[in-house]
C-alpha cells in the first residue's frame, strides 16, 4: 500500500483557511458566499500548481504560515507578495513567490512575511475538501466548509491528506509578477445615496481613509472624515453585497467582504466594484486608501478588463527552465539596475 502524502500545518500564521470561489445561491437563507478574498490570486496559484482554477486553496494573512510535507513529495505554489523560504536537509533557501515548488518528504515551506498586500494563496496539488452547500469554502460562524466540512480555520497540528497527484514535471513560474496597484479604490454610489447629505459622497472620495485593526474576512472598518446622514441612520434591512459600504450612526464607513452578513439595517453610501475588492481586502491595519467614483457600467467594463488581465497573467506562466536559473529570483533580486535575460524573446531584434 503506497503512502499517502500529507501536508502538516505547523503554524497557520495570523489566520489561514481553505477557500475556493465561494458558495452561491443561499444568501436568501443568510449564507454568505465566503470564498477567497482575491480570485485572481487563487487562479494564478492554482495554475502554477497545475490545478483547476477554482480548486480549493489555502488563503493566508500576513506571515507565519509554516507547512511540512509528509509521506511523499508535495507540490505547491504561492501567489502573493510573500517572502517564501524552503527548509530541507541542507538548510534553508529563499524562494521567490509566483512559482510552484515541489517539497520532498520532510521539507518545509514558510511564508516569512508579506511585503505588499497581506493576503497570499497557497495552491497544493492533491488538496481536497468536502463540498458543503456547493463549496469547500470555510465559513467559521456557521461551521461550513474547510478541511473536514465543519467550518474550522486551519490550526497548528492539522494534517491535510492529499489525493494522489502528479508531483513530477517541472515547476512553473509567473514572470514578471503582477505589478502592484495603489490607485484609488473605485466605487459605485448608492444604493442608499439619498440617506446621506449632498456633501457626503464628496467627503468619501475627497480624502484618505485608514484601515483600522477591525479588518477581517467579514469586513473592514475604516477611519476618516465623518459621513453625514440625511435623516435616520437606519433603514429597513435589505440585502448587502460584497463591497457594500455601510455607514452606521457614527459616520465611519465599513466595507463588507466575503463573510459579511447577507442583510443589514445600516444605509449603504456606495459599493466597491468587483475588480477592486481583492486589493482592498489586502490592505493591512494602519494603511490608508482613497476612493474614486465610477458608474455601474464603468465598473462592469473594469471587471471585464481585469478578467482579460488575469487570463493574460495565467497564459504567461512558464515552466521553470531546466538550467536551474531562477529568473524570478534574479528579476526580483536587488541587483544594480535590473537583470535581463539576453536570450529572452523580448530582446530579439524586431527585424
Amino acid at each position: 500500500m503506497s503512502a499517502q502524502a500529507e501536508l502538516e500545518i505547523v503554524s497557520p500564521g495570523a489566520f489561514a483557511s481553505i477557500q475556493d470561489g465561494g458558495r452561491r445561491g443561499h444568501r436568501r437563507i443568510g449564507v454568505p458566499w465566503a470564498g477567497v478574498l482575491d480570485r485572481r490570486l487563487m487562479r494564478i496559484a492554482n495554475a502554477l500548481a497545475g490545478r483547476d482554477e477554482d480548486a480549493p486553496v489555502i488563503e493566508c494573512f500576513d506571515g507565519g504560515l509554516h507547512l511540512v510535507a509528509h509521506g511523499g513529495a508535495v507540490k505547491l505554489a504561492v501567489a502573493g507578495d510573500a517572502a517564501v523560504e524552503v527548509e530541507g536537509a541542507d538548510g534553508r533557501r529563499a524562494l521567490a513567490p509566483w512559482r510552484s515548488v515541489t517539497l520532498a518528504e520532510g521539507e518545509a515551506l514558510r511564508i516569512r512575511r508579506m511585503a505588499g498586500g497581506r493576503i497570499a494563496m497557497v495552491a497544493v496539488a492533491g488538496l481536497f475538501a468536502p463540498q458543503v452547500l456547493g463549496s469547500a469554502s470555510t465559513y467559521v460562524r456557521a461551521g461550513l466548509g474547510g478541511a473536514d466540512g465543519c467550518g474550522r480555520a486551519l490550526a497548528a497540528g492539522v494534517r491535510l491528506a492529499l489525493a494522489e497527484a502528479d508531483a513530477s514535471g517541472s515547476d512553473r513560474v509567473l514572470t514578471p509578477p503582477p505589478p502592484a496597484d495603489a490607485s484609488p479604490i473605485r466605487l459605485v454610489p448608492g444604493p442608499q445615496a439619498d440617506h446621506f447629505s449632498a456633501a457626503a459622497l464628496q467627503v468619501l472620495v475627497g480624502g484618505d481613509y485608514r484601515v483600522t485593526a477591525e479588518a477581517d474576512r467579514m469586513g473592514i472598518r475604516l477611519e476618516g472624515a465623518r459621513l453625514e446622514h440625511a435623516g435616520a441612520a437606519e433603514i429597513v434591512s435589505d440585502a448587502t453585497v460584497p463591497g457594500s459600504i455601510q455607514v452606521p450612526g457614527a459616520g465611519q464607513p465599513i466595507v463588507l467582504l466575503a463573510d459579511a452578513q447577507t442583510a443589514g439595517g445600516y444605509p449603504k453610501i456606495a459599493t466597491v466594484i468587483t475588480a477592486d475588492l481583492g486589493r482592498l481586502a489586502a490592505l493591512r491595519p494602519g494603511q490608508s486608501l482613497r476612493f474614486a467614483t465610477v458608474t455601474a457600467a464603468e465598473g462592469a467594463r473594469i471587471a471585464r478588463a481585469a478578467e482579460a488581465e488575469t487570463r493574460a497573467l495565467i497564459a504567461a506562466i512558464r515552466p521553470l527552465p531546466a538550467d536551474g536559473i531562477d529568473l524570478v529570483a534574479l528579476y526580483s533580486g536587488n541587483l544594480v539596475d535590473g537583470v535581463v535575460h539576453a536570450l529572452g524573446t523580448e530582446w530579439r531584434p524586431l527585424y
Partner: protein
Amino acid sequence: MCPGSHASSPVSLRVLDAGDAALTIEFGSVIDPALLAAVNALDAAIARVRQAGALPGVIETMPTFRSLTVFFDPLATERDTLLAALQPLIDAAAHGIPVDGRHWRLPVCYEGEAAPDLAEVAGALGMSEAEVVALHSGTEYLVYMLGFLPGFPFMGDLPERLRLPRRSQPRVRVPAGSVAIATGLTAIYPWESPGGWHLLGRCPVPLFDARRAAPSLLAAGDKVRFTPVSTDECRALEAAVRSGQADPMQWLDASPTGANSTENAA
C-alpha cells in the same frame, strides 16, 4: 415607473445599482405585507423564467422586506440588458398576493440567564416581566425574510406596547439560540454573533442544518408562535438536540393549505 392604477398601493418602485454586479429592485421603504408580496412575486417570477433557461448571468436573488436584489456576473451579462428583461416581471410583481407558509410553535425559555434583557425591557416599557412574556408569546408572527446569519428569521409584527429601539450598545457576543426584539420585529440568533437587539429568551430549536435539502428550518412566509418552557425543559430539549434525537419537525404546527401556499409555487 408607475406600477399601476392602485391608488392605495404603497409601492414606490426604484431600481438601484448595488455596485457593478447587483441590482436592487425596491418596492418601498417600510415593512408592509403588500410590499413583501410584491418582492416575493418578483422573486418567484424570476425563478420560473430562470428555470426555463432565461436570464443568463443571474447568479441568485435575495428577497428582503421591501426589495429584491439580483446578483449577476458582469462578465456574462450587461446591467441594461438584464434590467430590460426584468422590466415586465417587475411590472407584474407590483400586484403580488401574499403566500402562506408553514405554521410553527417554537419553545422559548424566558427565565434566568436565558433572558438577560427581560428585566430592563420590562422596566423600559413600564410593565412586569410576566406581561412582557405574555405579550411576546401571545402573538403570531410572520417570517418576513431570512438573512443576517444562516437561518436567522426576521419576524413581525411585535405588539405596539413591546417596541423599543435597538440597544445603544450592541453586544459583542449574543449566545446562540437567543430570542430577541427590536423596533417592530422579533428574531432568533441561530449562531453566536454580535448583536444589538434585546434578548428576552432562548430557543433550543436548531434553525439551520447544512445537511438538509432545505438547510433553513424557517422560510419567508411561515408563521411562528412562541411557547414558554421552563429552564429544565429547555435544558432537556437542548440535550436532545445535541444528541441528534430532536426532530425539528415536531414543532411544526401546520403545513400550508390552499393554492397560495409556498409549496405550490414554482
